[in-house]
């Protein structure tokens, strides 16, 4: 514990350097704007701005990108509460009671509770991350190819199990991602695969053109400006502080949401989205006044907003300690580290202490910045919401093209982004969630290499995945999850995932 505290103190000495403070602030500010603006989620925001970090060192880059991620969780609540339009997917559930509070004249209080809940959950998540990540990384150093293969299979199955779309749809998306991830030179044999004689495809398809295309351009194609309308409720500054009764109603939901969010965040999947829904369901179930939910219940804002921030911090645990992305956003962050020549995974803690601890410490600082940023500057964010979408999306398309091109100075990447935009548009039409595709793309090289190495180690015997205790344990969890999914399919049971799907579709 003492070693952890000393390392954290070292991290603060890195995070509090003026340059790093500036990039943390910039990340938080941009993240809040990304969260506030409907149509740009944290994934597209991070992807579009990834090339901007190329001139920075790895520590500054990851500090800024992570700031965008957790900043967007803060900002997402603003549009939900003031316009009943979720700034990003995790804030869908906040629309219900947040906007109802705003309509009762309590917009300021709802924003304040959301910001304080986010701060508490983010800080709690960071404390847990500080304690859990280093020992987990030590354990992960004992992982061999079979354990990594089993872990990645578990990640994909967990994603499919937790997803609000069906198991088949999620696995199809993951398969598509795996195929895209196998384009280029095979690392083990040197064969070119599916590169169609394009030298640019030799290194494979990058995560940036895929993520920007699917989530940035795809969203714009599916959103004509005439569909983006909304009345903005402007909160008055004197109404910002909640009453004593509202604080009392918020305290326990914030505590429960923080814990629940963090635990779900560690699990692969769109954790920050799922956590907010589960927190809402939990608060409604244990509330003495469930009838208030949907009509402006404080717990309906405090719980979900805390949970989605706890989850976004929790997602950093497997990313930093195991090098395993739990979702598309952490996958892009791993991609960012790789671009800067830093491998994510257990070695990060031991070999890149400055980066790891500086990053962890910067998130403590970032949380304080966000609290200071979100409450006094809510008026500014409200004015951003008044920019007509018709003027906004051409700007986003320009950033998509410039951002993707700047990664490798390759126009082929821009073409890939355009194709992915069309694929993203088509996937939306057919009710597919593109997130598992990005995850599949990122894990494809690690998965293929560890699978093939495992088979070579065992001379072609698949039992290697059941001989070793850690791999066996992970495989058993996979079997249980697949069994539960099959049971749910056979019984046609309507569970929380169906309700989540309905809420995401705007039927809730």
């Amino acid at each position, binding site marked *: 514990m003492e070693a952890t505290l000393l390392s954290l103190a070292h991290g603060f000495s890195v995070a509090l350097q003026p340059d790093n403070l500036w990039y943390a602030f910039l990340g938080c500010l941009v993240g809040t704007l990304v969260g506030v603006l409907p149509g740009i989620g944290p994934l597209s925001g991070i992807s579009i701005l990834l090339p901007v970090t190329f001139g920075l060192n790895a520590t500054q880059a990851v500090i800024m990108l992570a700031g965008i991620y957790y900043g967007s969780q803060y900002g997402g609540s603003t549009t939900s509460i003031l316009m009943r339009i979720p700034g990003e997917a995790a804030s869908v559930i906040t629309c219900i009671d947040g906007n109802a509070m705003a309509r009762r004249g309590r917009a300021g209080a709802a924003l304040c509770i959301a910001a304080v809940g986010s701060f508490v959950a983010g800080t709690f998540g960071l404390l847990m991350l500080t304690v859990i990540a280093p020992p987990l990384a030590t354990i992960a150093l004992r992982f061999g190819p079979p354990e990594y293969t089993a872990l990645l299979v578990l990640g994909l199955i967990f994603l499919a199990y937790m997803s609000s779309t069906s198991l088949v749809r999620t696995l199809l998306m993951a398969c598509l991602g795996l195929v895209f991830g196998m384009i280029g030179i*095979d690392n083990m044999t040197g064969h070119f*695969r599916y590169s169609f004689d394009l030298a640019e495809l030799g290194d494979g398809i990058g995560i940036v053109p895929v993520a920007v295309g699917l989530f940035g351009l795809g969203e714009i194609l599916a959103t004509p400006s005439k569909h983006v309308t909304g009345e903005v409720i402007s909160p008055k500054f004197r109404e910002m502080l909640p009453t004593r009764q509202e604080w009392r109603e918020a305290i326990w939901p914030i505590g429960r949401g923080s814990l629940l969010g963090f635990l779900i965040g560690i699990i692969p999947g769109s954790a920050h989205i799922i956590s907010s829904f589960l927190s809402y369901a939990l608060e409604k179930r244990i509330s003495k006044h469930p009838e208030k939910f949907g009509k402006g219940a404080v717990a309906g804002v405090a719980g979900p907003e805390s949970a989605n921030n706890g989850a976004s911090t929790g997602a950093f645990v497997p990313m930093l300690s195991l090098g395993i992305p739990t979702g598309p956003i952490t996958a892009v962050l791993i991609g960012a580290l790789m671009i800067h020549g830093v491998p994510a995974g257990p070695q990060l803690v031991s070999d890149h202490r400055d980066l790891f601890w500086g990053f962890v410490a910067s998130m403590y600082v970032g949380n304080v910045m966000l609290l200071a940023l979100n409450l006094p500057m809510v008026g500014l964010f409200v004015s951003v919401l008044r920019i007509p979408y018709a003027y906004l999306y051409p700007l986003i398309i320009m950033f998509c093209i410039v951002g993707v091109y700047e990664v490798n100075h390759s126009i082929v990447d821009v073409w890939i982004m355009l194709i992915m935009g069309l694929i993203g548009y088509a996937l939306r*039409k057919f009710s597919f969630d593109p997130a598992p595709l990005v995850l599949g793309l990122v894990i494809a090289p690690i998965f293929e290499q560890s699978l093939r190495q495992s088979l070579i180690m065992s001379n*072609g015997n698949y039992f290697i995945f059941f001989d070793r205790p850690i791999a066996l344990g992970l495989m058993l969890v996979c079997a249980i999850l697949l069994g539960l999914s099959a049971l749910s399919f056979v019984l046609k049971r309507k569970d929380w995932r169906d309700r989540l799907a309905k809420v995401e579709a705007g039927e809730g």
Partner: protein
Amino acid sequence: MTLRADHVAGGAFVVFGILIIALSGDLPAGQLSMPGSGFLPKIVAVLTIILGLALIVRASESPTFATIAWSDGAHAALVTVIAVVATALYTKLGFLITMASMMIALLIVVERRKPLHALAYSAAVVLATYAVFVYVLKTPLPSSPFTY
């Protein structure tokens, strides 16, 4: 039989899986003890076909193909065409001319905004972005053939 969304989606995935197998023809699958470069692609392609078929089998749970709303189709097509033209010209005409033209086209053709507003907004935004990338971030952007 009513054509449903998942019939079309499942069919597309089956075709995609077959295409991957066809394109993997010259990639050696190897043996289990020494898997080749075609080993995993073929497994994933077969899995894609199986899952695509599963989607077709369960298609009755999906909405009919005719009910999928394509009202945003014209917007998507116009935006795509303009973005494709901009991409094709980007390295030839450079950042300033291409991006300003793309934004003007999007604002006038797609959004029916007043030409003067579109022109002013596009010029301001493109010049500001150019200044940020080139002078603040020190990241070179493609230059126009008219620049010396």
